């Protein structure tokens, strides 16, 4: 019987439905159905594109509003033009860092022939319902969503809690699909990690990245990481306030999930739409500290 419930055709609900389908496919008899999961990933990609476009448009609107307010309300200590130039510079850095980080992540991850199921790898691949299948001695086959795992443990390791509170950062909830452990990060101190002390937070959030780096054997230079965090700090400062307006119930969970899965969709993202990719990366970056740690990785 067709469901009589009003189908929420908006991007967010489609994303959560798609993720549930991928998750459920793990336990289905007969193994992972490659065809069905591929189709679900297309829906996920489409919904994500729409969602990110909407998000970006909203952020852009908020930025415009903010700039206007800044000019109108306060005595200018900083020349607003300088602020933009500074940001533009950081954006450039972030862009190149993002792109090359992404590229190297994918490029490195593709030949993970020997990257056998370490616990992290299993979590990562398990997110998309893959079990590490082997094609003879080749790389794990259906593990094509090479996204990083959402380990709750890095969260707890990051205990850089300073008073520089971005009070608008709210809770971040992460669900580990393997252990079904839900971890909630209070008050978004992850944001603070990235915002305040770049070095400390860099190390804090980077340590899981480094941990994974060792396991995956990816070669991502530290330089890129640092510049990423610098950019993230600036961007996070400017954009955190807009999140106070967002509904943080399901939305935050979904946005975090999106950002975490974001790095794994390189096969589906058109490589020609670089600008869109860059923009989406920027939005991804601003969505949560998790993203920073992962994209920089």
């Amino acid at each position, binding site marked *: *019987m*067709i*469901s*009589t419930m009003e*189908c*929420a*055709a908006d991007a967010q609900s*489609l994303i959560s*439905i798609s993720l549930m*389908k991928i998750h459920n496919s793990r336990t289905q*008899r*007969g*193994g992972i*159905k*490659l*065809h*069905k999961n*591929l*189709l679900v990933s*297309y*829906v996920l990609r*489409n*919904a994500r594109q*729409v969602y990110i476009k909407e998000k970006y448009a909203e952020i852009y609107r908020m930025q415009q509003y903010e700039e206007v307010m800044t000019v109108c309300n306060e005595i200018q200590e900083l020349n607003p033009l300088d602020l933009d130039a500074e940001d533009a510079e950081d954006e450039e850095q972030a862009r190149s860092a993002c792109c090359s980080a992404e590229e190297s992540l*994918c490029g490195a*991850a*593709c*030949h993970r022939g020997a990257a056998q199921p370490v616990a992290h790898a299993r979590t990562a691949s398990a997110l998309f319902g893959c*079990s590490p*299948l*082997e*094609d003879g001695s080749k*790389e*794990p*086959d*259906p*593990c*094509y*969503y*090479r996204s990083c795992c959402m380990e709750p443990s890095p969260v707890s390791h990051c205990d850089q809690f300073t008073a520089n509170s971005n009070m608008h950062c709210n809770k971040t909830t992460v669900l580990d699909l393997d252990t079904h452990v839900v971890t909630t990060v209070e008050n978004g101190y992850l944001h603070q990690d990235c915002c305040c002390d770049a070095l400390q937070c860099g190390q804090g959030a980077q340590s899981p990245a480094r941990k994974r780096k060792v396991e995956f054997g990816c070669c991502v230079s530290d330089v890129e990481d640092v510049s990423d965090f610098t950019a993230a700090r600036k961007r996070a400062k400017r954009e955190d306030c807009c999140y106070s307006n967002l509904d943080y119930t399901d939305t935050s969970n979904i946005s975090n999930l999106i950002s975490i899965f974001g790095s*794994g969709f*390189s*096969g*589906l993202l058109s490589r020609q739409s670089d600008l869109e990719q860059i923009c989406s990366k920027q939005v991804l970056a601003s969505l949560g500290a998790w993203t920073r740690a992962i994209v920089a990785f």
Partner: protein
Amino acid sequence: MGEDTDATPTLNHRGFLPDHNYVTEADIISTVEFNHTGELLATGDKGGRVVIFQREPESKTEPFSQGEYNVYSTFQSHEPEFDYLKSLEIEEKINKIRWLPQQNAAHFLLSTNDKTIKLWKVSERDKRPEGYNLKDEEGRIKDLSTVTSLQVPVLMPMDLMVEVSPRRVFANAHTYHVNSISVNSDYQTYMSADDLRINLWHLDITDRSFNIVDIKPANMEDLTEVITAAEFHPHHCNLFVYSSSKGTLRLCDMREAALCDKHSKLFEEPEDPSARSFFSEIISSVSDVKFSHSGRYLLTRDYLTAKVWDLNMESKPLETYQVHDYLRSKLCSLYENDCIFDKFECAWNGSDSVIMTGAYNNFFRMFDRNTKRDVTLEASRESSKPRAVLKPRRVCAAGGKRRKDDISVDSLDFTKKILHTAWHPNENIIAIAATNNLYIFQDKLNSEMH
């Protein structure tokens, strides 16, 4: 065209309890196939069993029971298996059955599940030897002292027994799920296709197969399409076609290269950008492809349409038939309940003038390519009494003008889907699989093909 179809008694060969809505999942029919003469009809189910029906020869004494199909043989083709290396259970569901052309008294068919293809021999035994010297009638060894003379055993008639034995097992050649098998017109080779690869086998050799198509990308992250169906050309043993999840068809020539990754022809209809939605990729995925009997055309089925392609025109299909376009506005709900992933099959009639495919609510549709008329019929116990003429059905949009007996889109039962249909190679007889029931309809008035 279809309005004069008679309904023969429905053949429920499962233990279906009419009082309950409960259907054992193992009884769900997963494939239906006539043999080359139409005398035999094979069905496979999710429980790994194959049931073969045989058409009764026409009898002069009972003219009305001529040509009915009765159970001929039942056997367990595949069992559930466990791949210990990958910790995966391999389903026993029969994905496809294909008959071999008959070359002697026995019949041969290929049946496949997700991983293993088997060749079965179906033969009849109606005589048995009697009069052994050393054994008695029950088979016990005789006491030699009682044997006083020698006799020659003779063959005596016995009740017909149908024996089925596995002659070949073609295993360990597919990493992904096998979705199609197709016997070549040379009657010596056949191919099996999974999501990413197609292998060519010789019917007599089980320990070796040749990979002829491989679309697996070097980096699985770059995967964008999978193979959904494949079939050999009915006459040219070097040609075959395979369809993809992106809605494309590729015709390949095995004479060109050992590995047919490069297609000879690519059949693709450009996407209409205005019709783009979240589900565009899903509904454009081809679920079935069939050559016409003439070998001139291709019939494909995607979620909402059936298309006829001319082998000589790659740019767009020759004809497009809307099977259930009223579902276009319901794609989101169908995605939620997984119905959007249903894989409908399609079929040609013997003269390639009519195509048939299934839909929801136990409806199936036929399209006459010449007259451009189409009909929707229902396969259900309530609406098809034996010998009754099937009544055409109509689905109207919700809130639209409704005639009597019309069904509104919102009342369609999406759990009743007709995924598998087959058409007799010569006559107007069709087999429709509706979940766990098999319906066979004959067009008595127009039994010859037009």
